[in-house]
């Protein structure tokens, strides 16, 4: 029991790397904090890891981040790997309180890839960068043998200008603060799951991939220091993001289950497959923590951004139960919402 509730640095004892280590949940955390950080960033052991690193150059605050993109299929309703590669890195900068300035991109291409497909993805990256208002200023290309990559892997690195009005830290989160989300959750993960074609379900869903910078900027503009913390809940979903926050701020999180916006199609697919929408990946949402007093103003700011119409206040911070996320149903039943263990696997039997 002690290992569950005492925060600290996990040690990495697994004999090999499994898919779960890349799924964004507990296993990923163990790998990063137990193996990678101790070797590469020994000074950061036990510290809170952010979506971006903060640097200072000539008195200017900069944020630096990198991300790599592996997705099957390459294209899915609402987007493609090219969109994800731009938006994902832009979003990591945005939630760090930075205005995205420029991106570098690396393409790892499998020999045999039709030029048409590559062209479409590069074009998607260009269009996504233009929409997000960020320049792609350089990159690298590698080609690997046929069968060595799922067609195309993309890695992007982004640099952004930190907004001095943003004071974001899990440590600044207080009991009573409110939790906001920018829109319906789970669209991306369920869209990709269905687009793989392994599951014979059809739904009129599309990925939510987009830049969340307009949302982050609206919050910084309108509530400034009352904005405590932001994340984009990608792999592992809102549940994993909030569990990380609960751990870092050492408070309890109470989610109002009915207040969380989820499309009927996503809820239906999740009910059928035994998945929890809170565990499903998003690629264009923001989770923000805002003081109680400023929460309505923050909600109004999010709803004014095009595409933010279904933003909602979904919960609050409490002194206890510490380091735990609890979902409350309308009839009063409560459940613990854990981080995801491994990939979400559909239940059938």
């Amino acid at each position, binding site marked *: 029991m002690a290992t569950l509730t005492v925060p600290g640095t996990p040690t990495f004892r697994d004999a090999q790397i499994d898919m779960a280590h890349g799924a964004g949940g507990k296993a990923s955390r163990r790998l990063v904090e137990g193996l990678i950080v101790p070797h590469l960033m020994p000074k950061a052991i036990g510290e809170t890891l952010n979506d971006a690193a903060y640097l200072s150059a000539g008195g200017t605050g900069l944020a630096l981040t990198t991300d790599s993109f592996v997705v099957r299929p390459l294209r899915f309703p609402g987007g493609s790997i090219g969109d994800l590669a731009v938006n994902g890195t832009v979003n990591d900068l945005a939630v760090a309180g930075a205005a995205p300035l420029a991106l570098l991109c690396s393409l790892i291409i499998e020999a045999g890839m039709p030029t048409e497909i590559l062209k479409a993805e590069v074009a998607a990256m260009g269009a996504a960068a233009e929409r997000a208002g960020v320049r792609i200023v350089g990159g690298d290309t590698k080609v690997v043998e046929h069968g060595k990559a799922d067609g195309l892997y993309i890695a992007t690195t982004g640099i952004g200008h930190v907004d001095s009005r943003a004071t974001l830290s899990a440590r600044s989160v207080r009991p009573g603060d409110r939790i906001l989300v920018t829109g319906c959750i789970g669209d991306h993960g369920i869209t990709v799951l269905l687009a793989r074609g392994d599951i*014979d379900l059809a739904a009129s869903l599309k990925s939510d991939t987009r830049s969340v910078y307009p949302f982050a900027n609206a919050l910084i503009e309108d509530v400034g220091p009352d904005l405590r913390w932001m994340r984009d809940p990608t792999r592992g979903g809102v549940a994993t993001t909030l569990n990380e926050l609960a751990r870092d701020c050492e408070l309890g999180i109470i989610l109002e289950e009915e207040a969380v916006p989820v499309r009927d199609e996503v809820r239906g697919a999740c009910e059928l497959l035994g998945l929890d929408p809170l565990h499903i990946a998003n690629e264009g949402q923001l989770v923000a923590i805002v003081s109680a007093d400023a929460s309505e103003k923050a909600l109004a700011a999010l709803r004014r951004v095009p595409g933010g119409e279904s933003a909602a206040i979904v919960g609050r911070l409490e002194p206890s139960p510490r380091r735990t996320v609890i979902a409350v149903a*309308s*009839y009063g039943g409560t459940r613990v919402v854990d981080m995801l263990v491994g990939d979400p696997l559909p239940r059938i039997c």
Partner: protein
Amino acid sequence: MKFVDEFRDPRLIKQASDEIRRLVDPSRHYRIMEVCGGHTHAIYRFALADLLPPNIELVHGPGCPVCVLPMGRIDEGLSLVERHQVIFTTFGDVMRVPGRHGSPLEHQARGAQIRMVYSPLDALKLAQEHPDRQVVFFAIGFETTAPSTALTVRRARELGISNFSVFSNHVTIVPAIRAILDSPDMRLDAFIGPGHVSTVIGARPYGFIAQDYRKPVVIAGFEPVDLLQSIVMILRQLRDGRSVVENQYNRTVPWDGNLPALRALADVFELRPYFEWRGLGFISQSALKLRPEYAMWDAEARFEVPGIAVTDPKAAQCGEVLKGVLKPHQCKLFARECTPELPVGALMVSSEGACAAYFNYVHRRAGAAAS
């Protein structure tokens, strides 16, 4: 009607839980077994125990297909990949179940040809796409999933597909319930009957529980209102000294079951003389194998299966938990050596397993409250 929201209606939930409080005899302790793992999951997920008086004890039953599967079966299935280079397909439920040398997911990460499928028909499609490879579907589940396996085998025969076969671990629910009723350490007052299985077999097969063992049975759905209403129905029977089979889940469960599905089962499968269940031991006539006329699509007939017997780790008390003798947290390994991340037994793997449900929804809450 969305068939979900209505059954999570706070007003109806309150009504049912008030009715339960009115019906209970405070001088009496009630032990009610929910047979089905889906019910176990729902009871924890919706925190229904919070809504029940303390003298109603819900006992978790054996109705979680991956939980009752002995580890040796996973090893036998995986041995086909190593020895015969087959493509191994199975449901997501099985992917994380530990075998002696790791779960199917871990084998997959090491490069083994293992694919998760949503339907056995997807496995058949894979066989059509890879005519040069043998594709084995590792079939699992009670009568809930067995008809889809049966129909897939029939489809394979119709299409003349010879590189597809089924490794059947299908089990039947009634012998398991009988084994529990005959177990000497079992004191139960009533049963919440399984929901999904009953959509196929109907309500009739549970008659012996009410007639021979004099225990009420109420077949229930999976939402909070369903489960609470089924407990109301059970308490009314106990109050009146009756024991009959009742069907709370009648929006889905027909009294006589799904006849086309039952016919497909009878056509493709026959009962094995006996089959080993984790925790319950060998139970006669409790599992399904393909009939000899379908031997061509029976992986156990086509390939040499080594017959691996693997005993569960000694310290693990999966069997006692499966029979409802121990609560998950009373097992010596619970939350210490055995967690959802590093499971020792399958009950900690499946979302329907009593240990995983208890760990995720109860244990963590208790741990958080104590910190």
